[in-house]
């Protein structure tokens, strides 16, 4: 969080984390398309030639003033592939909340777990843990036929019982509620710490 008192701006950083091709960029694209132009920055995407995220995607959501204060949310995605671990560490720096985008397909369970453990390892290096850090898990691609049941996903991935959402990022189903809940959890956490 960064507070600029002169401009009354309160800036937060939210990172969409998860394995490759789980739908992190699609989340941001939906949010960006949905928002009125006055509420958003440009959507920056840094892709490989194959249209996969190379470094990160970025956009800022800015809300109207609240009691004179301007809340701004910087939304990032990380590259999901295993070999981009240094990039993920850089993007996580200064993060206030994490949306973990899991791929619901049965065949992707091990990639989800690997990515979750990678996230926990990075958070521990930064002096945090998923047990206490504000984060949400999103079970994406619920429209596909070969998906795992929510019970199994909850048992295998959501071992800290954080808030979860069933989403279809391509249509935007539950994408905005995920974002709103993430923001509320960050604010709640700050209140607890204050």
């Amino acid at each position, binding site marked *: 969080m960064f507070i600029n*008192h002169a401009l009354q701006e309160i800036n937060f950083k939210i990172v969409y984390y998860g394995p490759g091709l789980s739908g992190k960029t699609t989340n941001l694209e939906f949010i960006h398309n949905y928002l009125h132009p006055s509420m958003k920055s440009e959507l920056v995407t840094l892709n490989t030639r194959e249209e996969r995220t190379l470094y990160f995607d970025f956009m800022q959501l800015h809300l109207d003033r609240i*009691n004179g204060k301007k809340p701004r949310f910087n939304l990032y995605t990380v590259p999901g592939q295993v070999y981009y671990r240094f*990039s993920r560490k850089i993007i996580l720096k200064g993060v206030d909340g994490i949306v973990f985008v899991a791929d619901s397909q049965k065949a992707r369970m091990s990639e989800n777990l690997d990515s979750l453990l990678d996230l926990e390892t990075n958070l521990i290096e930064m002096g945090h843990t998923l047990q206490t850090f504000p984060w949400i898990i999103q079970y994406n691609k619920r429209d596909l036929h070969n998906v795992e049941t929510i019970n199994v996903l909850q048992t295998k991935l959501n071992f800290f019982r954080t808030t979860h959402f069933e989403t279809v990022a391509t249509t935007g189903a539950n994408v905005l509620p995920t974002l709103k809940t993430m923001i509320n959890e960050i604010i709640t956490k*700050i209140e607890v710490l204050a």
Partner: protein
Amino acid sequence: MDVANLSTGQSLMLSEKLFNKVTEIINQLLVSTGAKTVLFCESNGYAVTQVGAVREFDLHALSSLAANNFSATAKMAGMLGEDDSFKYLYHEGEKASLYISNIGFNFILIVIFEVDVALGIIRIFTKKAIVELAKELQKAQDEGEQTRQLLDKEFKSLLSQELDRSLKF
């Protein structure tokens, strides 16, 4: 002001007094060099203050790209055995160029200038500005400058209402 290293889940605040001082210094840098734009950003990419021509590009996107670019090269410096990040990044274009430097751990300075401005001038005056900015940041830290609390109880419920309105739930 809290100028401790910003890490995950921690907050950093910039007071109005320091904001004004920083803006004054970067404005002087703009005038001295003839640069097109000077941006002062937090190291995670939050745009803090800027002078010169800023309406031609997306300020927040540029700040984010510059900050993450700087972080990536700092990692490369570490891999090469450097104790610190590289002192600056310079990207030369046909029309405009970028000169990016860090100010301690928490802030970066971005100078955008056109081809008619010599790189040497940018380097000399940016170095001078960085010394002044670092001094002001240190002074604020030493004085233990307090910032007013912005996030009160009421803020959360109003934020929730604003999100409902903006995102049309």
